């Protein structure tokens, strides 16, 4: 992750990572219960602005990620738009029946996906793994074994990627690229087994080495990085509250569609 984050000086990097994680998780609950289409439209616009303002990716990467997110969001709504129930039919073609209700519901689902993706991108683009897991240990009291386990696992990612390339090359040299369903199943299995076996062996060796050095065998411990709180956390809460409330207010002032309640749970 570290390499693709261009400018790590942005203020979103300085927010307490656990706090950021919890807030973004809570936002997820908020937008899961919203069934007012107008609110979702405004919230999506505001979060898009927020994402563009604070994300840690380079401009080009964030542009393509937005395009990808839009694509995913549009298609997460297609099943509902084409096959949803509704009485005011707009378009009918064999099994595909598009009605006003299904269109509104589908759009809402697409916007939900869009907002959740943006939240995920904000989180992913402005969090570095090391402070994140240190913060999990210090603020959320996640057991040291789990947090360091994650950190150790993250360090193995480049090795995994390299291994993947090796396996692919080895198979190419041996002419193992056949077509057909059975060959594809065999190929997936071969990749998975080679990757898994090597990863499990490596993880086990690492754990043995850590325990040989008496890792986490004593109760009290100190941390190399102390993750604390700062004014940025206050600012962050302020911005998020403003965005959320702004979305609700704007949808009240400027309702763009007549649909205020489109999903019944």
């Amino acid at each position: 992750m570290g390499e693709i984050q261009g400018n790590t000086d942005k203020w979103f990097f300085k927010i307490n990572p656990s706090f950021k994680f919890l807030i973004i998780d809570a936002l997820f609950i908020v937008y899961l219960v919203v069934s007012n289409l107008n609110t979702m439209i405004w919230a999506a616009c505001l979060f898009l602005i927020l994402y563009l303002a604070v994300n840690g990716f380079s401009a080009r990467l964030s542009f393509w990620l937005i395009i990808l997110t839009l694509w995913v969001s549009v298609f997460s709504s297609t099943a509902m738009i084409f096959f949803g129930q509704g009485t005011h039919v707009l378009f009918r073609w064999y099994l595909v029946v598009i009605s006003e209700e299904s269109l509104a519901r589908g759009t809402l689902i697409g916007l939900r996906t869009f907002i959740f993706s943006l939240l995920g991108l904000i989180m992913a683009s402005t969090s570095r793994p090391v402070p994140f897991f240190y913060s999990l240990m210090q603020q959320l009291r996640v057991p040291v074994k789990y947090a360091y386990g994650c950190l150790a696992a993250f360090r193995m990612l480049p090795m995994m990627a390299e291994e993947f390339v090796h396996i692919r090359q080895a198979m190419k040299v041996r002419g193992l690229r056949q077509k057909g369903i059975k060959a594809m199943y065999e190929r997936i299995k071969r990749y998975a087994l080679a990757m898994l076996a090597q990863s499990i062996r490596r993880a086990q060796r690492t754990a043995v080495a850590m325990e040989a050095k008496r890792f986490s065998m004593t109760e009290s411990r100190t941390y190399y990085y102390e993750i604390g709180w700062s004014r940025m956390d206050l600012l962050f809460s302020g911005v998020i509250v403003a965005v959320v409330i702004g979305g609700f207010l704007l949808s009240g002032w400027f309702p763009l569609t007549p649909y205020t309640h489109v999903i019944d749970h």
Partner: protein
Amino acid sequence: MSKSTSRKLNLTDILVTIVVALVFGLVFRLLGPVYDLVKPFGLQLDQLIYGFWFIAGPFAALLIRKPGAALLGEAAAAMAEVLFGGSGGIINFYYGVVQGLFSELIFAAWHYRKFTLSVAMLSGFAGAIGSFVIDLFYGYLADLAGWNLILSIVFRLLGGAICAGAFPAVLVKALEKMGVANLVRPVSKEDYDVLNK
């Protein structure tokens, strides 16, 4: 290192589970865009391979054979997907936790003593049910036309049992043959019997 007889997850178990989850998380991330491309056809065919999303839980449980492995594995895989910036974003973490929990329940029902193909398939099946719980809140399910909803449910449950149940069982079986699985297994009765011979 001594192989502990306790049923609590030790450092080796945790590290192995997380690393395995990362491998799957990486696969999720790579598979995600492909999956998103298949989605638009709308006939819910994508649901057949949806099961690959629950694979980490049953796989970890079959490999480690201890309580909590399935939940940890699936949650870590989902977390990895979020941190890699996977499509769908933060919601994947919740999906992971709920799916892992449902897969875990199946192994718990057999007191973590039975790790056969059928139990694995049930566990994948349960993961699929877990995913529907969140789908229900998301609004993917409510108000879909009846036939489409049934198609989606049948395909996903089937896919869950096969992709997240049978497939990991085959993988773990192969890993046993390779001698990798017993690096991380708790000591069993048979191991003691060997010593007594």
